[in-house]
């Protein structure tokens, strides 16, 4: 666990840098919408989920109420339900301890921690998430209090960073043929649903693409040696 954790910390640093910048824009937006700076920071510290936070902020900012904001955030968060189930048997301890450990689930850590054989490197996930959490909270504070100093993240092209990071993780995964099929199916399901479902649902539904893993039960996952 110690080595995994340290490796995770190292791997998490670039993600933490991006998380800091993105959460600055959350802090700025939240205060613009009418949150107090403390409320903006509390949101990031307690919810710690970019897509859910931005989604609820957009709804509240547009004059929506608590149920609508909570609903949108829940849909954006729903992919973590699938990720949590996937990671469950790689976590330690009783149900409560595992539920607590599951809070470390964020996209990048979860995906990097996936060993490609159905198990997860738990220490690596914790290590990668730790700096991202710190960056996420500090960035929010900077944005909430120092709003005017931060440029527009979109004008700076920073929204292109997370997809690029995710592609970086994906390319390593895609050496396995079955992972390629899952990726194509997941992507197709998500894009097909975009016009018909609220944001968040397409990504959750993409987990259906992983059902390709049911094929040829008993066979070794193809390409395992490359992992």
């Amino acid at each position: 666990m110690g080595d995994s954790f340290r490796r995770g910390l190292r791997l998490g640093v670039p993600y933490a840098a991006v998380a800091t910048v993105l959460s600055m824009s959350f802090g700025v937006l939240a205060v613009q919408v009418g949150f107090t700076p403390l409320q903006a920071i509390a949101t990031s510290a307690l919810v710690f989920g970019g897509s859910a936070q931005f989604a609820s902020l957009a709804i509240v900012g547009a004059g929506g109420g608590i149920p609508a904001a909570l609903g949108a955030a829940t849909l954006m968060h729903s992919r973590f339900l699938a990720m949590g189930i996937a990671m469950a048997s790689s976590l330690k301890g009783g149900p409560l301890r595992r539920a607590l450990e599951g809070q470390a689930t964020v996209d990048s850590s979860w995906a990097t921690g996936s060993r490609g054989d159905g198990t997860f490197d738990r220490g690596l996930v914790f290590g990668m998430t730790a700096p991202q959490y710190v960056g996420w909270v500090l960035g929010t504070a900077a944005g909430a209090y120092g709003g005017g100093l931060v440029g527009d993240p979109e004008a700076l092209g920073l929204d292109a960073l997370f997809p690029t990071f995710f592609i970086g993780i994906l390319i390593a995964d895609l050496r396995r043929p079955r992972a390629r099929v899952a990726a194509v199916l997941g992507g197709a399901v998500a894009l097909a649903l975009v016009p018909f479902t609220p944001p968040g649902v397409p990504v959750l539904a993409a987990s259906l693409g992983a059902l390709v893993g049911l094929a040829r039960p008993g066979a070794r996952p193809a390409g395992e040696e490359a992992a």
Partner: protein
Amino acid sequence: MTLSETQVWVLIGALTLMGLLVKGIGPALVGGRALPRWASGVIAVMAPALLTALVLTAVLTDGRRLAAGADTVGVAVAALLLLRRAPLLVACLAAVVVTAGLRLLAG
């Protein structure tokens, strides 16, 4: 915003509970036993399925519309660089420069 300061705190509380539940319920209910073989096969390929969906919905949608923008081009350039084994840092730099540059040109 039509919410009062107290209502915002209520929202934050609700979001917190929701987050704890969504991330915690799978580990609490499903963990603690060895996985059947079929489940391992599915979980093994869940990361590529979800990551692809995250990338595509990030760069090819605008709300509920399918739409391409400057970030689509920036990320595509970065993806090509990564496929040609460029370092991640170079790909990120390209993604940001291309995306920001196109937005600047578009005004």
